[in-house]
């Protein structure tokens, strides 16, 4: 057992941090929306999926079939990242307009918003399975079958420590996630609209009285949270190279778990929660087998919540500065 752990802990850590970074980026969307609206944006997993397919669409339109190198690779990844961010961010704003705003206008409870979110989630998945994948991606009657993504990046080992190989794709994922988190932190803490977001998450009534345009804050929150999911989507597509209509579901559940683990509403908590969840899953798999990954993740979540009922770093956006 211990032998297994020593043999596997290095590669597991690298794998755990990579998937954890993707969880973290998706978790940001959940955590920001929750902070502002106290709403579990259940359709966020489909926002992620839309970004991933948008990136794939551009890859196909440009006609990339093999790995790129050097400046072409960097340029292409940046372009695809912008595309995925725009698609996910835009979809999130539309989702808010269609599925949440009408409910908010009428003061409906959060339960109704959750059901609306579940409905939107089902709708978007089926829309891709029935219409978009068969038509736009030209795979008639194969809407529920995974779509391969061409390889963008040749895997290269950059560094070998013992039996642990650190590959270029792992580095790109983890570094991109951290850069995005830093940018977001600056955005929320240093800009006017960021202040609005923090104020709203602290106290929406007072924020309104203080002249914060709540609708604009909410729109921005969805846009930025969606864009982060777009970044995650590109990294996911690049790393795992396959997409399907329900690709977001499991990732969404994990990312939401990560957000709660870190302390929902807390941006840095999302990063911490994501990385922690990735590591816990992969380390746990060494001892118990990969089939127990999810059980381990949820058990740790319950244990953490029992001792720290608001997650590792505690709730609420405005405390992000602390």
């Amino acid at each position, binding site marked *: 057992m211990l032998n297994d752990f020593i043999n596997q802990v290095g590669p597991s850590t690298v794998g755990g941090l990579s998937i954890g970074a993707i969880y973290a980026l998706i978790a940001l969307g959940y955590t920001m929306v929750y902070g502002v609206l106290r709403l579990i944006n259940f359709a966020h997993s489909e926002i992620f999926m839309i970004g991933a397919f948008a990136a794939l669409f551009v890859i196909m339109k440009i006609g990339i079939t093999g790995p790129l190198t050097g400046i072409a690779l960097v340029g292409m990844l940046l372009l695809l990242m912008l595309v995925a961010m725009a698609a996910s961010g835009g979809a999130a704003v539309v989702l808010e307009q269609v599925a949440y705003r009408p409910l908010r206008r009428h003061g409906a409870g959060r339960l109704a918003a959750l059901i609306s979110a579940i409905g939107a989630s089902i709708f978007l998945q089926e829309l891709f399975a029935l219409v978009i994948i068969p038509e736009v991606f030209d795979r008639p009657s194969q809407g529920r079958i995974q779509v391969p993504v061409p390889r963008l990046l040749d895997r290269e080992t950059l560094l070998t420590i013992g039996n642990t190989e650190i590959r270029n794709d792992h580095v790109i994922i983890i570094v991109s996630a951290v850069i995005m988190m830093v940018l977001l932190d600056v955005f929320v803490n240093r800009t006017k609209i960021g202040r609005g977001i923090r104020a709203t998450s602290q106290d929406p009534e007072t924020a309104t009285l203080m002249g914060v345009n709540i609708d604009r804050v909410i729109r921005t929150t969805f846009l930025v949270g969606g864009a982060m999911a777009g970044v995650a989507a590109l990294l996911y597509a690049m790393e795992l190279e396959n997409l399907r209509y329900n690709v977001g579901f*499991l990732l969404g559940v994990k990312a939401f778990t990560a957000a709660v683990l870190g302390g929902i509403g807390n941006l840095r908590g999302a990063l911490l929660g994501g990385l922690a969840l990735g590591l816990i899953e992969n380390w746990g798999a060494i001892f118990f087998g990969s089939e127990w990954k999810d059980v381990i993740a949820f058990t740790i979540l319950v244990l953490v919540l029992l001792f720290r009922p608001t997650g590792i770093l505690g709730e609420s956006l405005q405390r992000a500065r602390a």
Partner: protein
Amino acid sequence: MRSKIARLGGIVAVGTALTLGLAACGSGTDDASSSGGQSDGGGATTLKIGFMGDLTGENSALMIPPSQGAQLAVDEFNAKSTGVKVELVKYDSQGNPDQAVPLAQKAVTEDKIVAMVGPGFSGESRNVGPVLEQGKIPSVTGSATNPALAENGWKYWHRVVANDAIQGPAIADFLVKAKSPKKAFVIDDAQEYGVGLADAVAQEFEKQSVAVERDKIDPNGSDYSSTVTKVNAAKPDVIYYGGYYAQLGRLLKQLRDGGVTATVVSGDGAVDIKLVEAAGKEAAEGAVLGCPCLIPFGSDVPELKTFSENYKAKFGSDPLIYASEGYDAATAILKAIEAGNTTPEKINDFLATVDFKGVSKQIKFGPNGDIAANIIHVYQIKDGNLDWLGDTTQAQLG
């Protein structure tokens, strides 16, 4: 009071509108189904045979070829037959037992089918079996390979392929002969079919004193890095995966990226050329697949050649996995009808004695409904194509 009346009026109006709307939809679908249905106005009797399987779901790629195979057999029969005509009614269960049972009840009680080709998968077969048994409707499946299905004592159930208890050991034996491995790593997708096959393979390896390590992957997940880590730590000579091609594709890609070079082997659920697409051409190269199915890739055997040509002429594509078995399953039933048996009971009696050279193999059933001939074929991915190497007794790994 006024407002109450107004409200009542509203209720009636909306209620009527809804009813009309529903009725309109209802009659629309009724028309559609009846026009395809009993159009036996010409005097000749039309018998209905059901086909049940996953026609639009996630694993429909495995079920569309046999449904077309069965359709081909029925069309050929109708072209020849002067008296009785046969109609193939398709029931799309999406491979889901919960959907399959009501459809089977409907097939038996309302559509009055005389026999069924299918159900396609083992899970639905197990739940549908008792319904057909009670309705005394014979069934012939061309693809449900769970061994336990033959152990229910069902009198109306038959299958034309070898089961997983034969496939697993046969492929393990074949690998021991071809590769003489010291250590094997057996992975499955934690689903019924995959676990069953993986267990059978692992047991046979252990019997042949090959060390076995195991792990499972989440079929809905995509990141299999923890499994790759385990495989890398174990350094096996051969890897067996029990499950379907979509997950195998992802796994293969990640294994090869992770530096694993051992031969990867899988079963009938992964026999699909889309495996190459899912894994990428390089990662898929050399993967070995065992299957009780016979896919006639450009075969020169006359029956296979005719079948392939007719199939292609009709459906515009080569016959893929389980197409020939679907054809044989339907043919067994059609032979019974040809011999003048038009009731389910008589067809079932005839099936007990049937013995003919089908497209895929000799079709003859044992007393429990299982096929007498136990043949497992070996396929390999070479240059992005699926090559047939022969059955396990004669295939040579390239």
